[in-house]
């Protein structure tokens, strides 16, 4: 187990390096010079170059190491990363990148955690029912329903909801600042009302994957000898399935949220864009539109770290739950 854990832990910095380096390369390959863009912005589009401006531009570039070779720039960035300094955003107001991310991150995490909980809450029973009554009417209907949901594009459903459901529900999402006027219960109700549509959009696609996995995992367990023994002992079918088979079937399922995590973080870009939720997805979208390099690098790194942490947590849980590999 120690070697297994060590292997997984070692993977994190290597992957981080890979992700950040690729993002860094892509950004540098982009046509367009951030210094020029910034100057144009400052001059209001008026680009008459004077000698002082040329000098100022050179100084600005040298400050940000934009005149050094690529690998050196990457090295500087890594050094700053070690100090958790992501630099300042290019966009006005020029706050620190870490501050902007820290503002937006909790919102995204809240929505994603809520979605995860809902997905597990719904998909596990669906999978169990499908497996317990394989090939019956329930199995077919639920499979079709879940398939149906998986294939609906989230942004389409979001748009349709906004068009047809919006008079009852609000169109913009998260409102974190309303506590004062409403009191706690009122705040909770408002929060819930704002979040129903976005969370629904983010959640329904995950049902299919998880319930199918639960179904096939449980089916595998149901064919095992211990289930036959339990049935032969005369235990009611419900106890056989729920108390004995499901436990073993849950083992691989627990690790699956490592698979779900990257998709959720990615999907949040679309959901937050649609419902105007000020989370990481929307921040990333705005950063790309403005070509705000430090912010983009910061967000990519943080989301890569979160993804990796999620995968690591899934692996740890797997080790904790599955006695078979504890002695690896």
């Amino acid at each position: 187990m120690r070697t297994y854990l060590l292997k997984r832990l070692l993977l994190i910095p290597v992957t981080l390096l890979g992700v950040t380096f690729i993002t860094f390369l892509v950004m540098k390959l982009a046509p367009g010079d951030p210094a020029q863009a910034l100057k144009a912005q400052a001059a209001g589009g008026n680009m008459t170059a004077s000698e002082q401006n040329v000098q100022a531009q050179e100084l600005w570039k040298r400050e940000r190491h934009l005149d050094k070779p690529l690998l050196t720039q990457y090295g500087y960035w890594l050094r700053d990363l070690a100090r958790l300094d992501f630099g300042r955003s290019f966009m006005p107001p020029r706050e620190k990148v870490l501050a902007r991310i820290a503002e937006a991150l909790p919102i995204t995490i809240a929505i994603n955690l809520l979605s995860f909980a809902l997905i597990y809450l719904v998909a596990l029973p669906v999978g169990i029912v499908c497996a317990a009554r394989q090939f019956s009417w329930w199995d077919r209907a639920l499979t079709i329903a879940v398939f149906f949901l998986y294939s609906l594009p989230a942004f389409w459903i979001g748009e349709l909801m906004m068009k047809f459901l919006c008079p009852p529900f609000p169109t913009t999402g998260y409102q974190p600042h309303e506590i004062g006027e409403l009191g706690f219960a009122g705040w909770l109700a408002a929060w819930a009302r704002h979040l129903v549509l976005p969370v629904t959009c983010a959640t329904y696609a995950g049902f299919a994957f998880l319930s199918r996995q639960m179904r096939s995992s449980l089916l595998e367990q149901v064919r095992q000898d211990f289930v036959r023994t339990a049935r032969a002992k005369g235990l009611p079918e419900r106890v056989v399935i729920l108390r004995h088979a499901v436990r073993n079937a849950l083992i691989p399922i627990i690790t699956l949220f490592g698979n779900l995590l990257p998709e959720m973080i990615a999907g949040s870009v679309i959901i937050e864009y649609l419902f105007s939720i000020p989370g990481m997805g929307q921040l990333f979208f705005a950063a790309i539109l403005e070509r705000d390099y430090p912010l983009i690098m910061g967000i990519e790194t943080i989301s890569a770290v979160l993804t990796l942490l999620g995968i690591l947590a899934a692996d740890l849980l797997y080790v904790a739950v599955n006695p078979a590999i504890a002695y690896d």
Partner: protein
Amino acid sequence: MTDEAAVPGRSYWDIVTRAFRRNVVARVALWITTALLALAILTPLLANDRPYAFKGTMPGEYRRAYSQVVRGAWFALLSLPQQLRAEREQFEQGTATLLQLKTRIPIEDLRTIYDPLERLRRRAESRPDIRGRWVSGDVTLREIASELAPAEAAALESATRRIRDGLPALYRDRLRDILTGIETKIGEMADQLDPALRPKAAAVAALFRQATPGDYVFSAGGRTPALDAAKSAFQETLAPDRVTLVPAWRFPIFDALTALDVFFIVAALLAALAFGPLAWAGLRRLRPAGRRLGIQASIAILPAAALALLFLALHHPRFGTVSYKAGLKDGSIVAESAFWPPHRYRYDEVPEDAAERRSPPSRAHPLGTDFMGRDLLARMLWGSRISLSIGFLSTAIAVVLGVGLGALAGFYGGWVDIAISRLIEWMICFPRFFLILAVVAFLPPSIYYVMLVLGLFGWMGIARLQRGEFLRLQNQDYVTAAAALGAREGRIMFRHLLPNSLAPVLVAASFGIASAMLLESGLSFLGFGVQEPATSWGQILFTAHGQKEWWTLVIPGAAIFVAVTCYNLVGDGIRDAVDPRLKV
């Protein structure tokens, strides 16, 4: 089911296809995906604004070609000697500009005077009075020469002299181009004439060719008697009011096709033939299934490729931008009979009539129009090509990479396996969507980048499956037998292991197509995917964001939903057909 496998002659794929066919839902889904694919391939023939064929004349084009010769080309011809003289004088007297020097100077001379010119330019940067003229290239050669050292000035002088001497040759080339243009135009006009008149047209073209002796460019005023004679012959024989145009069959649809379109359309039709009627007729008796598949594929692909190459070599689009519908309406095209595609609109057709914008579904526009008045059915059809091709191409890249690397890892084992497995684990952790967003947002917008990134970051699952299958199959008896008979490693891999291990890969590929389509529509929806005027289903949703018209919102989304569902169902069907454990 189990004793079917024991019957001699039933291969693994026979069993799988039999089980798949028993699954009604998957079969229906397969038909739907095939229909979508067929619609996408045949779109240029189904929704286009030009007719397949029409019998008639194009007087508008004739008149346009005529006036292009009589006015444009003629004046260009006449002004050549004057321009030559003027330019020669400029270079002789040093009034030519730096820009002209840079345009005319040969490379070897440029190398010698480049450094002095750079030095002067840098010096000029600090003098606001002349810097503007240096930047725009307006400073004259005489001014430049005055600031150069004697040796450099001499180099400049000799360069200038060489330019002056080379000017006549340059102008003669331009003359030749203009004359070739005139001949081509006469050829186009002759196409519409009575066959009896065509020799006369050829004679006029010949007159133009012969009217320009070698030293034409030095004649005063640019006119020679021969040239005048050619022009009057042209005006007498070919003037629009003096000829009657003869109706002939024309096929404008070919101008709207590319060689790739031709390949896919012919291949699709031949494939329908090979897998349908021909298969029923006799091919089904051919065994093994692999050989039969190979023959059917060759029947479909080889003639299609040949025809496409032929098309590429022989087809020269003419009248490429003519609007046939407008022409028929205002009389510049006269047609006795015409055969139109079923839907007479293209995806980028913007009508001048503003009343057609935002119109709901009607007889003329079965799916309505968008905010610019473009027909939605045409946009959906043309958009399906991009949506489906992104799915297929990116999955193809992922499959090739995944099968290749997975096979290597599974077959060779050892450190190859370890290295590839680590690579897979490492790349699985990448946040794919964010990387894709970064790539499409920074690099110039092109769907090919999207396809490449989707493929490059989607092969890991397939590689894992392939590796697992190879590890499982390696110890089968037929592999040992093949090795004992002396088969090389490559042969064992390709001929024996690969065909039997492809089933899980097919499943993953099917799901991969579905998810690639979803991803592409998501990207286009954010505005980062396909750019105007090209269209894809996600892009239509992008333009529909925040608009009042429900049809631009509901229909593309429904189409994406149907396509993705069907691909998922097919994948699920194959998975169920292949997995022995799910059958009790």
